[in-house]
């Protein structure tokens, strides 16, 4: 017991021990509620049960008629393009984000891609793709729906 890290911490610095003890208690408290609050982070790493779906949604971004292959980009670059979009479109569809806000998002996305030299034209199209999987594991697009045809000023 006396060799444990917490015991040595207690012996060395009572205030630091108190801070660490509060942090550990906080972690346990939030873990019991299965609710994350920074800095009490829970590392589930895909531990929630994933339900099977008949179809899956993906987004295609076309600039100058050519599809942006964002999966070939560096990871964080891809996240910065795809993540705001995949979060904002469902919010817009459920009425939580206004059309004006969406237009601002498209303008920013276009500007951001232009800064990365990914844009040669001033048009951008975003499509919502509904996909399903074949038994051999391949994905096929069963429906394409245009979300926006954006023309930069």
């Amino acid at each position, binding site marked *: 017991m006396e060799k444990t890290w917490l015991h040595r911490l207690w012996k060395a610095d009572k205030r630091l021990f108190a801070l660490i003890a509060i942090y550990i208690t906080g972690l346990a408290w939030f873990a019991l509620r299965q609710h994350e609050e920074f800095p009490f982070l829970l590392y589930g790493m895909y531990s929630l049960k994933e339900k099977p779906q008949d179809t899956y949604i993906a987004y295609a971004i076309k600039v100058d008629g050519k599809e942006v292959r964002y999966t070939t980009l560096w990871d964080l670059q891809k996240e910065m393009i795809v993540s*705001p979009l995949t979060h904002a479109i469902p919010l817009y569809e459920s009425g939580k984000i206004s059309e004006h806000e969406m237009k601002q998002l498209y303008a920013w996305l276009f500007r951001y891609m232009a800064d990365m030299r990914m844009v040669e034209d001033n048009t951008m199209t975003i499509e919502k793709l509904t996909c399903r999987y074949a*038994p051999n*594991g391949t994905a096929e697009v069963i429906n394409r729906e245009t979300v926006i045809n954006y023309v930069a000023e």
Partner: protein
Amino acid sequence: MLPNKHFENDYRLKATLVFSFALLLFFMRFMNNVLVSQIGEVPFLFEQKEWTYRLFYQSSIAQWLTVHFIPAAMFDALLFFLPLVFMLTRSRLYVYGFSLIALIYFLLFNMAAGHHYHGMVGVLVMSVPFWSKNEERFNLLWQGARYYLLYIFASAALWKLLRGSAFEPEQMVNILKAQQLDVLLQQPGSLRAVIAQYLIAHPAVAHGVLVTNMLLQLSFVTGFFTKRFDVVLLVLCVVFVVANYFAMSIVSAELLILCIPLLNFKQLQRIQDVLMVKEDVAEEDIRPAVV
């Protein structure tokens, strides 16, 4: 002043490793075009449920930084300047500043992306031991950072066991279908797509991958009781990062900074001491003889 020569060398070596990694990490983020001045004026920072993010949003720091390019560029420059100056001077003032700036960046990036990524946590955690120059306190905080890495992996395994997802035969296939869809559509011939396609078509193999991953994560529990297997855990951590990329298209390399406390510093120190002795001898050899 640091109290003794041995601790001074140890502190310097650890500071060099941690903050060189931090510099590399922010350089990669710069190359990824995701530093604050590069993100630019995001139209809205997503609504936050966590109180820390709400407080940060209320402070308006994020909103102000994203619309002012020059302060944002200066902020980005500080992400490089502070760790660099700390490595040279080892003045704690620069570490405090770095921890604060890195925290602001962490919150701002997650708000702009609309998703709470954990990758940057490693840098924040690893900067904490350097808040102290007291040998005992520093060593205890350094051990604390090691425990944080163990907690990350051990808890990931325990969540899978407690939530029962590790026992779901279709769990991995369902995750892959959602996670790898973009890769399968955009790069169907790539190695990642081939792996995903194979695993989706073979649920038993995919479940085996999930269980293996869970066992790998669970093995980090041993680190709470002994340091004997730290090198093994270090290797497993690297294996996890590589496998996570090929199986899930997730780049978790930023978490590797937390592996630094798994290194055997006594051995590293010995190597450093030998090199320093050799340097001294070489210097004496070239020094002109003074009569």
